[in-house]
């Protein structure tokens, strides 16, 4: 503790040292006498909103989707073959007195609508309302014999067996179950500007998430079932802010109260196997709450130094009543040590930053971050039952994990002239952890960057970074049974050396043609690790081109490739992951008739492959995805107010995923799965949209 205090003192002293030479210099402004300058200004050509106060557009679209696919409709709602209606509007009101309103809505008619209202009187108050919905379609190839919600039952006549092969009625009992969730949010906010110094804001946000999700639970040691579990979450956030502003200083105090509620307090299901337990029961995410006080501000009163700071104090709490150890009446575990967790975690974040414009050519920047999670949850010993089936009297106490992280970043930036800019910096970071294998990790990183502007047409930058993370000691956590392998080094707590190199090139060949190229390499070496992640490399390169041939014709394109490789070691084996992702995009736009007819196309290809190889056994086939999407569109302006847009999109998706391909509901002898298959589709979508501008 003494050493930590000394280090904090040293860091803050260093920041003070960097800033001290100019602290006495205060900013001075030459004030203009605006009234004198503007006394004869009339603004007679300025637009008069008394004539036309509302303007905007609304549109109606009619579309058709050629095939069913949850993957295609994952977030856009176009998951089902058929006809769709869509609508959009955006309307703005403004009057000469400063009143304004903006009403907007999009995706109206689909399952991802958004409606927003913002308005008020400028300089006095503002109100806003935002209503949003995101429906996520996850799986449309699932099948299960289970029915129900928080209690999932098997059909009458179900024949339990030791393995899935013995479920003789399975074929007739299976029914389709689609997996999706719907997230809705409504946010109401307001701001009141009380004076030139003070303003106040408040907001209330209500979010819900409903639907179902796949989740699997075992019985005893080796049998499990996959269920479609219900989701019914509600989160309410209430926030108040007070802002103070004067020349050279801004400050804010904010209070946040957030409450999460889960309607479903448990998930219970029939045991499909012939083990003694008749049912299993799992916990769900418990209700929790967060209270936060946030202070932030900046001070600009010094001539060349800007100081900013933020302090946050948050308390996370959770006290849901515990479920019993088991619902298996044949087992008799002891009483629970407590009826609920009464969990409390205090999260404190303190950030301080100083920016010093030492000269027109050189600037210094320093940031100090302190973050801690103090977990004051009481420890009790729990004599647990394994998966509602095995009770051996084994017990374990909970670990109230806590973290303290500190980081100091200092960098400087020097402009030799308008063409060369040299930057460099360093970072020192420490992480302290409770109840984990490593108590302290320290990481130092240094970087340097050169940005060179050769002329108005060409500039490049190169950045290199080295990092070194060391740990104080690695100890197997003694209370965990069975104990972890003493040679394991978890990758977030392992010695690590890293290096990164980034290169960027921008070319503006002409006013019409511009290109960007960037590439970066990152390598992390965990060579001190015997078991665990031993190496991780990432390479990416991409290029982007924009070509405006003339005012009517333009092209754009991008290409990008990424390769992520990692190596890890097990007790008697090694494994490599080799992920490759390639992305290509092309676009074009052509105005055939000026202000009348415009056509365009967009094409995107996104392909990936993941190769997994182990030093033992036969090799895995690659996991692959490939998406090709082509969109053609034409806009025709019928008159000043009315236009029509036609769009055709063809998208093809192909995925090969050996985790689920050819894995039917009962392929695994001891896991009843949902029998999903990897998505594959070819879908055509057209839209015809009529838009009216007013």
């Amino acid at each position, binding site marked *: 503790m003494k050493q930590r205090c000394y280090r904090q003192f040293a860091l803050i002293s260093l920041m003070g040292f960097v800033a001290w030479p100019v602290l006495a210099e205060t900013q001075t402004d030459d004030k203009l006498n605006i009234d004198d300058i503007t006394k004869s200004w009339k603004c007679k050509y300025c637009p008069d909103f008394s004539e036309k106060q509302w303007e905007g557009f609304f549109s109606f679209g009619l579309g058709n989707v050629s095939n069913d696919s949850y993957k295609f409709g994952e977030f856009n709602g176009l998951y089902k073959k058929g006809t769709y209606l869509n609508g959009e509007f955006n309307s703005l009101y403004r009057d000469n007195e400063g009143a304004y309103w903006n009403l907007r809505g999009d995706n109206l008619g689909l399952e991802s609508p958004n409606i927003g209202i913002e308005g008020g009187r*400028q300089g006095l108050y503002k109100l806003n309302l935002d209503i949003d919905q995101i429906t996520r379609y996850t799986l449309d190839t699932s099948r299960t014999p289970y029915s129900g919600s928080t209690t999932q039952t098997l059909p009458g006549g179900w024949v339990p067996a030791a393995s899935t092969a013995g479920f003789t009625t399975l074929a007739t009992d299976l029914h389709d179950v689609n997996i999706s969730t719907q997230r809705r949010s409504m946010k109401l906010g307001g701001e009141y500007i009380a004076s030139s110094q003070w303003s106040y804001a408040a907001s209330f946000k209500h979010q819900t998430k409903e639907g179902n999700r796949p989740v699997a639970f075992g019985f005893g040691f080796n049998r499990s079932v996959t269920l479609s579990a219900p989701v019914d979450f509600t989160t309410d956030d209430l926030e108040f802010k007070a802002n103070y502003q004067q020349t050279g200083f801004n400050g804010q105090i904010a209070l946040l109260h957030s409450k999460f509620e889960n309607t479903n307090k448990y998930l219970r299901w029939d045991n499909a196997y012939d083990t003694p337990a008749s049912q299993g029961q799992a916990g769900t995410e418990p209700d929790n709450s967060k209270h936060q006080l946030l202070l932030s501000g900046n001070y600009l009163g010094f001539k060349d130094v800007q100081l900013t700071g933020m302090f946050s104090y948050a308390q996370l709490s959770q006290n849901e009543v515990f479920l019993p150890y088991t619902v298996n009446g044949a087992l008799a575990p002891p009483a629970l040590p407590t009826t609920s967790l009464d969990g409390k975690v205090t999260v404190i974040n303190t950030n301080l930053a100083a920016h010093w414009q030492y000269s027109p050519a050189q600037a210094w920047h320093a940031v100090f971050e302190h973050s801690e999670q103090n977990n004051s949850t009481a420890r009790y010993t729990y004599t647990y039952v394994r998966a509602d089936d095995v009770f051996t009297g084994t017990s374990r106490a909970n670990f109230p994990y806590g973290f303290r992280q500190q980081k100091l970043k200092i960098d400087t930036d020097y402009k030799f002239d308008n063409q060369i800019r040299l930057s460099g910096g360093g970072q020192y970071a420490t992480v302290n952890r409770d109840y984990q294998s490593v108590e302290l990790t320290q990481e130092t990183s240094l970087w340097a960057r050169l940005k060179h502007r050769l002329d108005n047409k060409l500039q490049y930058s190169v950045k290199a970074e080295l990092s070194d993370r060391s740990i104080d000691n690695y100890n197997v956590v003694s209370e965990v049974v069975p104990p972890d392998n003493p040679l394991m080094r978890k990758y977030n707590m392992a010695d690590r050396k890293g290096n990164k190199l980034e290169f960027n090139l921008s070319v503006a060949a002409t006013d019409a043609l511009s290109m*960007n190229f960037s590439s970066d390499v990152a390598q992390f070496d965990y060579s001190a690790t015997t078991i665990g992640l031993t190496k991780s490399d990432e390479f990416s390169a991409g290029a982007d081109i924009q070509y405006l041939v003339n005012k009517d014709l333009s092209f754009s394109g991008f290409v990008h490739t990424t390769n992520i490789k990692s190596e890890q070691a097990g007790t008697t084996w090694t*494994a490599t992951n080799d992920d490759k992702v390639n992305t290509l995009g092309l676009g074009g736009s052509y105005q055939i008739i000026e202000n009348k007819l415009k056509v365009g196309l967009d094409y995107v290809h996104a392909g990936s492959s993941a190769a997994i190889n182990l030093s033992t056994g036969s090799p895995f086939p690659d996991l692959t995805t490939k998406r090709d999407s082509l969109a053609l569109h034409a806009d025709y302006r019928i008159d000043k107010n009315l236009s029509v847009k036609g769009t055709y999109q063809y998208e093809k998706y192909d995925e090969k995923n050996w*985790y689920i391909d050819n894995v039917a509901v009962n392929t695994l002898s001891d896991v009843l*799965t949902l029998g999903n298959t990897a998505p594959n589709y070819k879908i055509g979508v057209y839209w015809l949209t009529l838009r009216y501008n007013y």
Partner: protein
Amino acid sequence: MNSQRSRSVVVGFIAALILTNFCAIAAEPNEKQPDRSFSSKGADTCLKCHDEDNAYPVLPIFKTRHGNRVDPRSPMAQLQCETCHGPVGDHQIAVKEGEKKAPIRAFGTKAWTPVAEQNGVCLSCHSDLHRMNWAGGPHEKENMACASCHVIHARQDPMRDSVAQVEKCMSCHINQRAEFNRTSAHPIRYGKMRCTDCHNPHGTMTDKLVNSTSKNDLCYTCHTEKRGPLLWTHAPVAEDCTLCHSPHGSLHPALLKKQPPLLCQSCHAASGHPSAAYTADGLPSGTPDRFLLGRSCLNCHSQVHGSNHPSGVKLLR
């Protein structure tokens, strides 16, 4: 490198940086500014030329808050156009066809006005808390002008539109554009999220321009069910969501950096099934393996984000 050596390197590096600080030669720009005076008629002077038919139409600004004349904070309520563009000076003098007008302070990536001067104009009003970390932030260091992204003379700044904002950000951040096209990604390409939902491009005191007090705090904004605290916390979850997830996109499901069992075996190697090698012999064509196929480790240990069940110590309940 041991920790003592690391510390020595850091101290040495900082000392070197401070030394260069006091040795740096201030290269004061010596550009002579033309003598300018304010116009006699304010915006009327400008609007005589900059109407709807002009190459630089400005009228849409009157449909925005910057064009409001009632709010005393608005530039149009102060020195009107010249609040931002500076005294009009010789720019108001008519020139012959083909001749260039005297310059006036201009905004944008191709404008003659230095970026620092452009941004200084914007920050003279917008130095509030959302932008308090602009100085020294990554975009300031890239010498980006406010007008590189924002369009002031437009009815609606494109940065307030999800699709336009994302397109703008990704015109430079091409790695992120590729990531959002991966098979598992947050719904950016559907227009249901925008970059500023998670990042503050004007600068923050946190890494990656995250607009919250920490990465986890940001994730919990939407994923509040994972906030806890829980009886059986999975330690990396409480520490940093990005230890397992790639927030922009992944070729693996659920934004995972890699898939189980190897992801889990990066940290778990206790005797028994966590330490075994799971090979292609466990595919359906061989002997289908419950530790590999379907949900792999999650076929049983489904509560990977932690459990509040008294028997959930192994994340089974």
